């Protein structure tokens, strides 16, 4: 198993290198002269020149690329055109934002997986009954709902009408909280975006789980387990679900790409200052170095997640281990 993991890790690294190179050149071929973007409508020539030099744009392209790669290896992602959170160092800003996104997405995924699992199992068991049809249709509806519409619905319902949750942000503005109170404040702000994404993703997992479970429940070993005198609940948890996790792991890995994209929408809608919102901001201002850094981090995160899923397969499915 160790050899397999090592091989996968090696290929992951190779992929990252390609992503890095592609990332660099992609932004250089964007429309508009980069100099113009930096200078924008500055009135003073001196300011314009200063900004252009700061970004090192007067050097030839290949030299810029070489410097870029070299810097990356030492962890220097360069300076952004604008400043965010009080800093214009790309790495600092991104690292500051990552925890918010990771925590939010992790909780949302967890919620989606558990809820989807439960619904999927219920559907598979009560197949062809009204409950199954109802839950399946519900899941399809949820899965196809646009994020922004659902987010506004949640905000309208929970914030404007019921006054339970805040309309956005990470902490309550202007107040100082410490310790437990701070964590609670954070959670209070996180719940709505988490539910938004979680409920939408839940639809996807419920549908997958349902069809996976339907297939599994027709397998012979389920019959064997039944013949051994185990209850339905026991069979579900010890025989069916462990097998269902194999295709589920694939779906989760695939969803990670969708989630990273959806995170931009989600974070913007809830003013949740994470990586997604940073990307949206940087995009609006055509801040290429920042975007480069963000895209790189996203790509690495995706590759890492896929790698971890691969490793996870080895634990879920013993047939792959050799």
């Amino acid at each position, binding site marked *: 198993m160790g050899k397999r993991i090592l091989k996968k890790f090696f290929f992951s690294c190779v992929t990252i290198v390609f992503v890095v190179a592609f990332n660099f050149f992609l932004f250089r071929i964007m429309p508009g002269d980069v100099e113009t973007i930096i200078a924008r409508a500055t009135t003073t020539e001196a300011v314009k020149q200063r900004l252009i030099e700061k970004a090192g744009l007067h050097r030839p392209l290949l030299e810029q690329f070489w410097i870029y790669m070299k810097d990356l290896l030492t962890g220097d992602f360069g300076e952004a055109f604008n400043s965010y959170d009080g800093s214009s160092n790309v790495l600092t800003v991104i690292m500051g934002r990552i925890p918010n996104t990771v925590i939010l997405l992790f909780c949302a995924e967890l919620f989606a997986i558990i809820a989807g699992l439960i619904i999927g199992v219920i559907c598979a068991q009560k197949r062809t009954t009204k409950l199954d049809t109802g839950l399946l249709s519900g899941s399809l509806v949820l899965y196809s709902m646009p994020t922004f519409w659902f987010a506004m619905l949640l905000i309208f319902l929970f914030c404007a009408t019921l006054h339970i949750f805040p309309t956005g942000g990470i902490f309550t503005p202007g107040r100082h909280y410490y310790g437990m109170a701070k964590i609670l404040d954070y959670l209070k702000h996180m719940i709505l975006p988490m539910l938004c994404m979680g409920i939408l993703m839940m639809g996807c997992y419920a549908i997958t789980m349902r069809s996976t479970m339907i297939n599994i429940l027709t397998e012979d070993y389920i019959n064997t387990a039944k013949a051994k005198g185990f209850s339905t609940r026991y069979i579900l948890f010890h025989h069916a679900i*462990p097998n269902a996790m194999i295709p589920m792991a694939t779906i989760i890995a695939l969803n990670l790409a969708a989630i990273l994209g959806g995170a931009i929408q989600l974070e913007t809608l809830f003013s949740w200052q994470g990586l997604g919102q940073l990307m949206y901001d940087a995009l609006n201002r055509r801040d290429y170095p920042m975007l480069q850094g963000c895209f790189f981090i996203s790509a690495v995160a995706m590759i890492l997640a896929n790698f971890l899923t691969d490793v996870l397969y080895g634990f879920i499915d013993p047939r792959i281990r050799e």
Partner: protein
Amino acid sequence: MKLLEVKDLRTYFKTTKGYVKAVDGVTFSLDHGECLGLVGESGCGKTTTALSITRLLPKGGEVMGGKIFLEGTDYATLTEKEIEDHRWEDVSIIFQGAMNAFNPVKKVGWQIAEAIIRHKGATKQEAWKRAGELFELVGIPAERVTQYPHEFSGGMKQRAMIAMALACDPKLIIGDEPTTALDVMIQAQILELLEELRKKLNMGMILITHDLSILGETCDKIAVMYAGKIVEMGTVDHIFNHPVHPYTKSLIACFPNIESEERKIPEGIPGYPPNLIDPPEGCRFCPRCGLAEGRCSSEEPEFLEIEPGHFAACHFAGKEGGTDV
């Protein structure tokens, strides 16, 4: 007391078109240590009969009537929860095609141990130790209990299945075509093993198959089923050497005789089994029977003992003659 007494068992499947009468009035009995072979075409109801004992029926199947006495307890009247306790502990099953009968993501030893833990209240350690002993009993090295199903060959898997079936010292083992998917060499080994264990542990066994050659070697009694009913039942000698029912005779004749001088491929039985939702009145074999008369299509023949231990359901049973197939 007999080990198993089945009286007038009816198991129907509910479909949108009506009830499929898969098992329609089956009666037989089994003693401790006795082996009964259930034989017949696909769809004749032999598997359903056996599975009805512990109510392991697929969706839509229900035991509609009859009695199933296992050592005096009528299983037909038990609740689902009660029967779960009896499963595997009193009656275990060796499934057809062990390929998929094992859960691919769980160790084989675990799958044996879980039954022991559930029914015998053993600890994990005790259960796994017992699993190792069972492996030895069926001829697999005990260390292999920690392996996964995909690491076993076909024959080994079947042995493992037998080990699993023995886990809780059942009184009755049902073998549902246990050797159909195996090659002949291994088939022989498995059957030998089953015989050995059966004698040693004094277990009753119901062997379901459509391979007559196996029956001759392992069974004490044979029941021939057709269209949800037993058409003839008797000892191996009765069935092979003095078959009475036309269906039985045709069935036996379908098997090529290695000792015959002609190299002739025998004819099959023309026609198809009847529709079990709406079975025909009278004898169910009538449409395909060479001896059929007027009575056959209107009056259902009774299941009668024509000689000690030899039962048949045919209007011509006991008479001379028969087909010359």
